[in-house]
């Protein structure tokens, strides 16, 4: 009974013992890997929309109930990541005290255990005085290690040195960095946003559209795009996209700079990325007017919603709509004619007039609304619409990024420490014998025994090398 009592006192609570298990870690790492595969096989988020239509509704319902169309943001995937994080924290806390003990513990200089089964080349005899050898060993060690411990007992001087004790903490730095990166991601999803906006050349905006909800989000400032330009290589591939942006705060210019791909701009914590571009018809069009009676040709530059007089004063024209592609027949404008006397006449005027005529013979005569000759004596032609560039910007704020970047740096430092540094302890015994002075070196290392034997080899060479200069007494 009493024995049971002590056991239950020492046994950690169930949760603690579960989460301090490294078996659980390996299981969770594999679980994250395996479940992640699902999300690469099933299209996610927007790409899912296209696929959904070709699947049976019951399958779609099933997949959707498991959140498999957006699995990386689902509660169950987050739960696994959370379990991994908890596992990491509990494990680290669980083992930290024993690591600290290993860090603090300095073994005795007179330990004999490391010298058991010593390879023969690590024990050698020097023909020199005991004092010259200990002096030499002492200065050599002091030049290489921070704390040199020396104990003298009878005929032997015992030395102990160590280095790389901090390497025990490398693992914690790695694990801490993993947590930092996860935390940064979490902070970003809580306090950040991802949005986009298209800005017409010459215009400004002060709201952006959120990617997730498609809701408008006001910015605490406004941005104007003065100019958008694309440069091409001779073979036609784009070389550079560039938007000249101006930021306004309280009505005044606060900052201006060109924005290029791969060179984002951050203003007041909100970052702008050049992500796409396109053209929209502008506000101005060029029309040509042919008179049937005289055969004269006149040209008119018109702006949308600004009436213009017809050349022969028969009335006024007005452009009420500009389409870059109307009914799949290319650019077109809607023209309204208000004759001096009589009813308004409306018609669509196309740019690709002759091409359309060829493809649909008689179409213009059949539909008065499409007939550019429905106001006599003119026939209207659309020569061109002004095209305006717009620039497509990704706009986002992610307050987690500094945490993530810090985690990136520390995980690399931590991995380096964990993999390539080790805690090495070296014991040296220098003993006075009748035949000369015996020197023996032994060491242990937390890992990388090759590095340790190389270090011991160098020490041996340095001890012997100088000592051989001392004339031997035999």
């Amino acid at each position, binding site marked *: 009974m009493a024995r049971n009592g002590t056991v239950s006192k020492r046994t950690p609570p169930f949760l603690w013992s579960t989460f301090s298990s490294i078996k659980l870690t390996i299981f969770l790492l594999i679980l994250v890997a395996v479940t992640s*595969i699902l*999300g*690469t096989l099933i299209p996610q988020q927007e790409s899912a929309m296209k*696929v959904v239509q070709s699947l049976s509704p019951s399958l779609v319902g099933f997949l959707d109930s498991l959140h498999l169309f957006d699995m990386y943001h689902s509660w169950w995937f987050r739960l696994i990541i959370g379990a991994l994080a908890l596992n990491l924290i509990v494990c680290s806390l669980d083992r930290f005290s024993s690591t600290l003990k290993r860090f603090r513990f300095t073994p005795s200089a007179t330990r004999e255990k490391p010298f058991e089964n010593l390879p023969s080349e690590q024990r050698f005899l020097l023909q020199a005085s005991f004092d010259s050898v200990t002096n030499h060993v002492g200065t050599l060690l002091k030049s290489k290690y921070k704390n040199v411990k020396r104990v003298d007992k009878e005929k032997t001087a015992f030395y102990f040195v160590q280095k790389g004790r901090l390497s025990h903490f490398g693992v914690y730095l790695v694990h801490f960095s993993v947590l930092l990166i996860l935390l940064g991601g979490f902070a970003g999803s809580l306090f950040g946003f991802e949005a986009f906006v298209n800005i017409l050349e010459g215009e400004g905006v002060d709201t952006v559209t959120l990617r997730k909800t498609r809701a408008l989000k006001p910015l605490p400032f406004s941005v104007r795009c003065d100019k958008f330009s694309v440069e091409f290589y001779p073979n036609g591939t784009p*070389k550079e996209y560039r938007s000249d942006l101006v930021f306004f705060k309280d009505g005044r210019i606060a900052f201006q700079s060109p924005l290029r*791909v791969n060179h984002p701009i951050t203003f007041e914590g909100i970052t702008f*990325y050049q*992500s796409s571009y396109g053209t929209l018809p502008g506000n101005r069009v060029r029309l040509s007017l042919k008179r049937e009676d005289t055969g004269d040709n006149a040209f008119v530059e018109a702006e949308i919603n600004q009436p213009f007089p017809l050349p022969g004063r028969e009335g006024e024209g007005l452009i009420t709509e500009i389409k870059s592609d109307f009914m799949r027949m290319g650019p077109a404008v809607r023209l309204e004619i208000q004759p001096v006397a009589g009813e308004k006449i409306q018609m669509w005027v196309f740019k690709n007039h002759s091409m359309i005529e060829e493809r649909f013979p008689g179409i213009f005569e059949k539909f008065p609304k499409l007939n550019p000759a429905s106001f006599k004596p003119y026939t209207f032609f659309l020569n061109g619409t002004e095209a305006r560039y717009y620039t497509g910007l990704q706009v986002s704020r992610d307050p987690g990024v500094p945490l993530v970047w810090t985690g990136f740096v520390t995980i690399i430092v931590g*991995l*380096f420490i964990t993999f390539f540094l080790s805690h090495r302890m070296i014991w040296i015994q220098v003993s006075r014998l009748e035949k000369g002075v015996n020197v023996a070196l032994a060491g242990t290392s937390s890992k990388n025994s090759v590095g340790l034997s190389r270090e011991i080899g160098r020490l041996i060479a340095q001890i012997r090398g100088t000592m051989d200069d001392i004339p031997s007494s035999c």
Partner: protein
Amino acid sequence: MLNSIILSYITFAYFFSFFFYLLMMVMHKEAFGRLATSITLAGFFGHTFAIVLRWIESYQLGIGRAPLSNLYESLIFFAWTMILLYIIVEWKTKNKSVGAFIAPIAFLTMAYASFSPAISSRIQPLIPALKSNWLIAHVITCFFGYAAFALAFALSMMFLLKKLDSPERKNLFLRIIPDSWLLDELSYQMVVIGFLFLTLGILTGSVWAYSAWGAYWQWDPKETWSLITWLVYAALLHSRMVRGWKGNKLATLSIIGFCCVIFTYLGVNYLPGLHSYAKS
């Protein structure tokens, strides 16, 4: 271009080094091993020369960029890093048998780059999204990682093969494969190097994605598969460092890990959705 002609000849050089490493193992003749090493070294120098030449030629075309930006160039660089790491391993361990396992992988990589009709060796100018020093750092670190994993894979295969060896069985081929403990240790060291570089590769890749698209992680298939690979190797490292697993289990995990590497690199292209790399 001259560089891709030279590179297609290098493909055959690696085939011959594979052939002679194999001959050395089957016939047990040192001379074949020395020949194989010479061919490998010559191939490596030619390979290095061709990569530098490609760089110079891109400047002559008025494009001027590091030769690390498309599938062709990445395959060429992958083979180059594999051979480089192998030469170091051969030099450090004084054992040539690993060559019989890694040279064929380098050969296949080069052959795929040079002779697959789907892969263009033309030097194309860079679209704006790919003009980034982070991308260059990303490619270099990823492929050093992949190359180290390829060596770990070769060593793990050798480890499993070595299991078939026994004193009664007088198989010269198996006899010449180094002892299991050495293979295990070497393969572990390769995984360690690979893991460090893969981590660097994923990190530089996300910094690049952040500067190009404004999000350092978007769960696209390529990113996700690189994470899966990372997790598999992390599991391998934990089971070795903490649980002390060795031998068969670890060799198997290392082989699974390398399959993930290959899938991350090539297989992902067959999945729905595109890596940002190809998107723009």
